[in-house]
């Protein structure tokens, strides 16, 4: 049965320095509030895992939380570069970032293997690419029936996965509607699962084949409305495409980035105060 905690307490209790952490959500339901809280609490040396390290990891990496990144696409979707990730890779600022780089198909196979507690995933992948020359973790396995060589990746089993979802019920079942990416797989692959939600309801709407993470796979739930902003929560609020565009200028410059993080993230007590401070600045 998950605990219902304030986000501050959920992060304090479940994200340790040096931990392997996956904040997932593919464009949709990205747990930005949780990422900000990790920055606020000054976590260090994290091994961050995420298929698409976009703004959320740009912020965390720029704020100095990470030492290592497992990923398959890192940029600002539809806009351009993730400038803070670039700076960490190109210049080692604010600290060097070790890369464990994959393709989407490879990451998906690795999460799936992790969710099933298999030691590796496989795919017909990494064909015609230089990636395996630079990542020794990309391997292969021989089919015991056909003799074919199939690409392999080690299972991903983060210490903790963090998701944002639309709603949880009082027992801690978590329901998600819309694009999930590999969020379900990452959630089930992790040793612990922390979820921020838009609302806590008495009873979830009948799900039938909908996506529900049953309460016994959830470690902690934090009620955090707006927790996916500037990404979106289907049925609650839309993606703030304007902010994604504006982020390009904020993140391009170290000083400007740090001022933004200091003022809006480190300078606020929680996600509500963060959003209020942004509204004030707008």
């Amino acid at each position, binding site marked *: 049965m998950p605990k219902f905690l304030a986000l501050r307490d959920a992060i304090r209790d479940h994200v340790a320095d040096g931990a392997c952490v996956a904040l997932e959500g*593919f*464009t*949709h339901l990205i747990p930005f509030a949780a990422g900000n809280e990790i920055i606020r609490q000054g976590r260090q040396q994290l091994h961050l895992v995420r*298929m*698409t390290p976009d703004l959320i990891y740009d912020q965390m990496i720029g704020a100095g939380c990470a030492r290592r990144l497992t*990923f*398959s*696409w*890192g*940029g600002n*979707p*539809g*806009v351009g*570069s*993730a400038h803070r*990730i*670039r700076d960490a*890779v*190109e210049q080692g600022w604010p600290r060097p970032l070790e890369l464990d*780089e994959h*393709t*989407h*198909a490879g990451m*998906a*196979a690795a*999460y*799936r293997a992790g969710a099933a507690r298999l030691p590796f995933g496989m795919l*017909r*992948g*990494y*064909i*015609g*690419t*230089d*990636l395996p020359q*630079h990542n020794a973790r990309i391997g292969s396995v021989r089919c015991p029936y056909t003799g074919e*060589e199939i690409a392999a990746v080690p299972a991903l089993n983060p210490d903790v996965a963090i998701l944002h979802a639309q709603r949880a019920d009082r027992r801690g079942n978590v329901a998600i509607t*819309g*694009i*999930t*990416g*590999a969020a*379900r*797989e990452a959630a089930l692959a992790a040793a612990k699962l922390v979820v921020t939600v838009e609302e806590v309801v008495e009873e979830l709407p009948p799900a039938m084949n909908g996506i529900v993470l049953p309460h016994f796979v959830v470690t902690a739930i934090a009620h955090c409305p*707006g927790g996916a*902003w500037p990404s*979106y929560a*289907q049925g*609650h609020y*839309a*993606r*703030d*495409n*304007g902010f*994604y565009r504006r982020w390009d200028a904020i993140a391009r410059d170290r000083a400007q980035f740090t001022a933004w993080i200091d003022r809006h993230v480190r300078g606020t007590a929680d996600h509500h105060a963060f*959003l*209020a401070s*942004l*509204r004030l600045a*707008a």
Partner: protein
Amino acid sequence: MSAWTRDEMMTIAAARLLADGMVCFVGIGLPGAACNLARLTHAPGLVLIYESGTIGTRPSVLPLSIGDGELAETATCVVPLPEIFSDYLQAGRIDVGFLGAAQIDRFGNLNSTVIGDYAKPRTRLPGAGGATEIAAHAREVFIVMKATPRSFVPRLDFQTSGGHFPGRAVSGATGSGPAVVVTDVGMLRPQGPRNELALAATYPGIPAQEAVAAVGWPLAIASTVESIAPPAAAELEALRALEARTAAAHREPVRLPL
């Protein structure tokens, strides 16, 4: 209707390549515009799949990301991303994969990973995403890129996705590789035993020399070069309306969820 731009010609030329009923794996930017234009004009039954997991999506405006909410709302269904890659792409169910990149070489190999050395890059690019396996397993690959000598290069800094690379036939790639590269100065197609890209079609008023000048390797000219018809009024109108709707939608301020 005003005269068309080269970007419009490129998008319209790409859209025309899509036949009704095809199943397309769509990227963001130019490919998304081409696919949605085709769907809104001659190919209403085009099936658009985004790697975010939306199948058969019919957005009224172009999304900024590949996972905007409208893609989910208008989709036939939304499936987990791992299924898109294993059960659709890897399973050979994608007719056309659309790709762009930072660099392309004469065999249609693509770089979207780094400029410079991998370990100490001059410019770190976003990386492979879905591209590597799209390049391998889509039945055909259509590439859409503006041509400049900086992007059409003799040698890639890093090969992210395979085009007609040596050994493709025995590599395990199940698709047939790049069929066409649509640029703003004409279209290239592979030819000859090594599948080297050659100028295969020109646009009205853009001579072959412009394409040759825009490409950073000595560009071959195909034995027959097709002359592409200029954008029809209906095409231009549909594209501009789509872009106007998109701009208006993206201009709409989003209230902070506070």
